[in-house]
């Protein structure tokens, strides 16, 4: 149709491409290994998503497994009829939202405070101490939590007992457990999370502060009018990524902290999938659950990104 007009331009493009490639091919070679990694470990496994729509068999190839009932949606229907799954879904949302509300501002506030510290040495010590919990695994953190918060042998409750105050069920009552869970999450992550913000703060033009000082701004005014707007793009990007993960959940944190008394709030999708899928052998059901989770996560991510762009921020792509 438009052969005459497109032909020269494709030829042009081809030439541009080869010139471009000649110049940058080393970079693409460097990219090769990471791409291979993504391909093998992230894309090839997607072939097995079809298990969600099929009756799983341990010996059959995934292509030969028979389709599940109800046009392949048998396991999705089963999942949504499963009270435990609905419960896990609710808990995942609840815990992640709380984490977001409480845990998201914490590193920002911490970074702002750190930034105001005058003594360099003190600042470094505080920073290092705050980073450390990030390197502890959740199993260890829960071990510490048991020593501190257990109802009869935990440090806090022993002290309370000695004052004649009744033990606080930090770990064995649902409501208290949620608070402990969120608190420990914040404790583990606020230091590490502040690194990005500190870096962003360091990138703010210092002349702005000088100018503000000349204009008579105090600490809080500077914080409000210079620092926060300066790191706003970083905050938005991180918020978008966090929202994308609203239905996702790490495995080790809830799994390590669960106990039978708080299961009504502690069972989340990842632990539900582990228990029913890997331990309970209901692979199709749990693949369906995992697939559902991923789809919702992607939707949230797109939505958050769209909103942030509408608000005039950059978003993540």
């Amino acid at each position: 149709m438009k052969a005459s007009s497109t032909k020269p331009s494709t030829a042009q493009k081809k030439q541009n491409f080869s010139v471009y490639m000649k110049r940058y091919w080393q970079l693409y070679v460097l990219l090769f290994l990471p791409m291979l990694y993504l391909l093998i470990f992230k894309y090839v496994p997607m072939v097995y998503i079809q298990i969600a729509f099929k009756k799983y068999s341990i010996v059959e190839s995934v292509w030969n497994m028979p389709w599940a009932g109800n046009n392949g949606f048998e396991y999705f229907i089963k999942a949504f009829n499963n009270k435990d799954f609905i419960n896990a879904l609710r808990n995942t949302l609840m815990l992640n939202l709380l984490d977001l509300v409480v845990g998201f501002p914490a590193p920002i506030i911490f970074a702002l405070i750190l930034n105001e510290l005058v003594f360099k040495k003190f600042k470094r010590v505080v920073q290092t101490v705050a980073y450390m919990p990030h390197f502890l695994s959740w199993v260890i953190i829960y071990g510490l939590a048991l020593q501190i918060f257990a109802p009869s042998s935990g440090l806090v409750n022993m002290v309370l007992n000695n004052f004649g105050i009744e033990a606080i069920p930090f770990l064995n009552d649902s409501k208290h457990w949620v608070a402990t869970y969120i608190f420990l999450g914040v404790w583990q992550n606020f230091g590490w999370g502040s690194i990005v913000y500190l870096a962003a703060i360091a990138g703010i033009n210092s002349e702005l502060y000088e100018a503000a000082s000349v204009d008579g701004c105090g600490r809080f005014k500077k914080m409000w009018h210079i620092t926060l707007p300066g790191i706003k793009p970083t905050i938005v990007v991180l918020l978008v990524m966090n929202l994308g993960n609203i239905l996702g959940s790490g495995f080790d944190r809830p799994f390590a902290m669960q106990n039978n008394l708080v299961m009504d709030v502690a069972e989340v999708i990842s632990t539900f999938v582990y228990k029913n899928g890997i331990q309970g052998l209901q692979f199709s059901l749990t693949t369906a659950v995992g697939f559902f989770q991923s789809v919702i996560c992607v939707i949230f991510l797109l939505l958050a990104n769209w909103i942030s762009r509408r608000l005039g921020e950059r978003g993540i792509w």
Partner: protein
Amino acid sequence: MKKKLLAVLLAASMTLSLAACGGGNDTKGGSESESSNAGTEQSAETEKESSSEEAEAPTEEAAADPSNGELVDGKFAETRKIVVEVYDRGNDGGSDPTNNMYTKYIQDGMMERYNVEVEFKGVSRWTEVEDINNLLAAGDAPDICVTYSYPTIQTYAAMGGVQDLSGYVEDYKELLPNLWDFLGETNIYWDKEPSTGALYAIEARRASTNRIATFVRRDWLEKLNIPEPTTRQEFEDMLIAFRDNAETLLGADADKMIPFSISYDVGWRAATIIESFRDPDITDRENYINGFDDRGITQEGTKEAIRLLNKWYNDNLIWKDFALYGSGDTTEGDLQKSGYVGAFIGNWDDPFRNGEDSVQLNLERLVSPDAAYIAVDCFEDSKGGYTKYAYGSTDRKIFFPTTNDEPLASMLYLEFITTPEVIEYLQIGDEGVTHNKLEGGAVEVIAATGDAIQNSGFNLDYTITCNGLQLVDDEATKKSIAYSYSGIAPELIEKADKVANTDARSSKNVQVGTIEAEEGIGTALGEKRDIIYDNAVIAPVDSFDQVWDDGVADYLKSGGQAIMDERAEKWVATYGDVDMLPE
């Protein structure tokens, strides 16, 4: 030049990525002969291999060589290799369960007798079902697997992941005299599927069927001048006395007093109580229909038993932290060893297990030489007896996953491990090192040190076909039981043995075929049951009914009811309208 290099690189990446993709789906193209790295396909292939082997067996049977020419003078011509599962109990001061003097003994013996190399693979005893599930799902299971959970085997068998052993036990019968002699038809065919005749597991034999007992601190009873409790009420009064006399019993540690300890697994750790609430005249049918859950959540009477625990919990008689510690955690054991725990329920020999690290020996060292846990019978049933359930004659279930391509070598391993002399050596080791001979032929186990330490009582993790002392000489076995826990006073063992056997009954073997509703649901339901029990125990007294009823309703709705219905239906289909099975 550069262009060429780029082309080569791109081509290489293309082929690589294609090959990577192909790993997932090359059977689609029909190229099944190509070996692939995907675990699921590998197992599919080995299944084909093994089934073709089975198919060959009958054609050459005329040669009167059951091994089908594989064995020369009872040995493989070429060295074969098998991997065998062994439980890892993670004991303090234990040895590596996959590499110690006993594994070497087995490895040398198998090499010498059959020219088979044996490798051991450790699986945590406390999470064995989960671990073996993971291994099976990954196609990485040992050739000889062992589990206590038959439903797990059934689930994998339904997916085609477990070999049918019926051919092997018959075809190789002549090669397996000890196995047949020791296990007999009963245990070998215990799990035979009535409809298909398939045999997915062989049941090990339990020499001692002792199961549970209740233990109390004898020295505390003496200190407070209380007689041994013989009824539920007396037991409760005793717990109250422990609680109220903490100062006397523990002095400065009075605030650590735990009159009665249980774990998150309430159904097991209160088993003598729960079973005493069950009707002693329960029919086999009723028992079977409610028998899926081995902690008896749907059985009549269980609710009242848990209500009793609930009352005790709210009266501060039960350890407050019990539900926080999961499977395999040692916290409760440490409390018992430190002498803070007045009473508990468990395996009939729980306080005496683990040699030097046993609860009893720790008590004697840490608290006082008089401190002791003694078994008592104090939970009377509705007829005044002490009904409790004992084990049947079966123990672990041995099965071969389809990834096992050495079925003959694996069967010979079972034969070797069932040889009476091998069992005896593994159980009691060398004289002077792990045992002494007493007058009258009894064997006394002594505490072994270093490499000779046994990680499990009588090395039961290695004698996978046998649980319980089984010497070559039966008379000696009987005499030796009381001396079989090194360092423990024989009268403590004798008392526990007596209690464990008083009014003990065992459930009968019901063979009605696969219950489909049970497949893949055991873990989830088991977990649900624990959650229900735990929450019912800690509920405020006046909301106990609601917590329990809601929990059980949820349990039934989540699959429990379907299992009971199918069991009831298949019982009628197989046995008709009878309530009791013949003895």
